[in-house]
């Protein structure tokens, strides 16, 4: 057990501590926004430490190759293989360091903008709910409204086709009118909210 292997074991064990802490934090934290914290930071640090420890193990392998390499095999080929391994470890570390916090950020933003899910918050009863501010009211482009029931007849199975088609057209027109009215109501609400927000300032 060489020196680099001992250093790598140390990093592995510290990474283990962080990984277990992050998992317990995700399990035990009181509400959703608190659970984002261990999942976003502790796990990222844990995987960085563990992959660094594995890199030290590969480095120890290379040192062994130099110190007492067996004459049977070509040490250069094994060295190239170990360099390949270290390169893949670096690539994996960079990839995880980029994607894991990004995914956590995307989850938190999606939960923030989701207006149909009320994230339960533990805490004082009288305290303002941090999930109920007006950020959730921001209209996202491409957002879908609540599902609207089709008022008219969709499929025409009657024999007297013209009358049924007329019914269907009037029904769809009604649905369009409803959608327009809802959009107008929403559009008229938003400036009022903005004015309300700007008044205290």
């Amino acid at each position, binding site marked *: *057990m060489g020196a680099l*292997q001992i250093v*790598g*074991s140390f990093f*592995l*064990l510290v*990474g*283990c501590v962080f*990984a*277990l802490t*992050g*998992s*317990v934090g*995700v*399990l035990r934290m009181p509400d*959703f926004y608190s*659970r*984002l914290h261990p*999942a976003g930071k502790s*796990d*990222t640090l*844990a*995987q960085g430490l*563990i*992959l660094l*420890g*594995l890199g030290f*193990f*590969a480095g*120890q*392998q290379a040192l062994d190759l130099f110190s007492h390499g067996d004459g049977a095999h070509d040490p250069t080929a094994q060295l190239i*293989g170990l360099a*390949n*391994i270290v390169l*893949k*470890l670096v*690539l*994996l570390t960079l*990839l*995880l360091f980029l*994607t*894991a916090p*990004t*995914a*956590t950020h*995307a*989850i938190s933003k*999606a*939960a923030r*903008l*989701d207006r149909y*899910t009320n*994230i*339960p918050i533990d805490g004082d009863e009288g305290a303002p709910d941090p999930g109920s501010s007006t950020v959730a009211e921001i209209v*996202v482009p*491409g*957002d*879908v409204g609540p599902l609207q029931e089709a008022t008219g007849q969709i499929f025409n199975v009657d024999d007297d086709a013209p009358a049924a088609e007329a019914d269907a057209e009037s029904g769809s027109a009604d649905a369009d009118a409803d959608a327009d009215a809802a959009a107008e109501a929403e559009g008229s609400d938003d400036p009022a909210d903005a004015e309300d927000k700007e008044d205290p300032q």
Partner: protein
Amino acid sequence: MNLLSTTLLLAGGGGHAEHHYTGPNPGSYVIFATCVVLLIGAMLLLIRALKGPTVFDRILAVNAMGTKTVVLVACIAFLDLDKSSPGFFLDTSIVYALVNFVATVAILKYIQYGRLS
């Protein structure tokens, strides 16, 4: 049997054990312990994924489980470093990291917008 003999050799200071077979690399036990800890962490995250009150708790837990799995596969690659090449395991790990991220973003988009286009 192997574990016991290697442990004894380690404890007794293997000064006389240089030229005969000493079992697996002692670093392998550290890596094996890391694998076990990662599996325990994944089990705790699975509990959160099963009982999460909102769908975002479940997505968060599954995403963290995927990260843990990536690291677990990388650790399994190094379990037997003396005899096997860990390159293929690391390839699998990189692909799993990519798929994990894309799947998380896709599920979030589907939940928020109701469609993937």
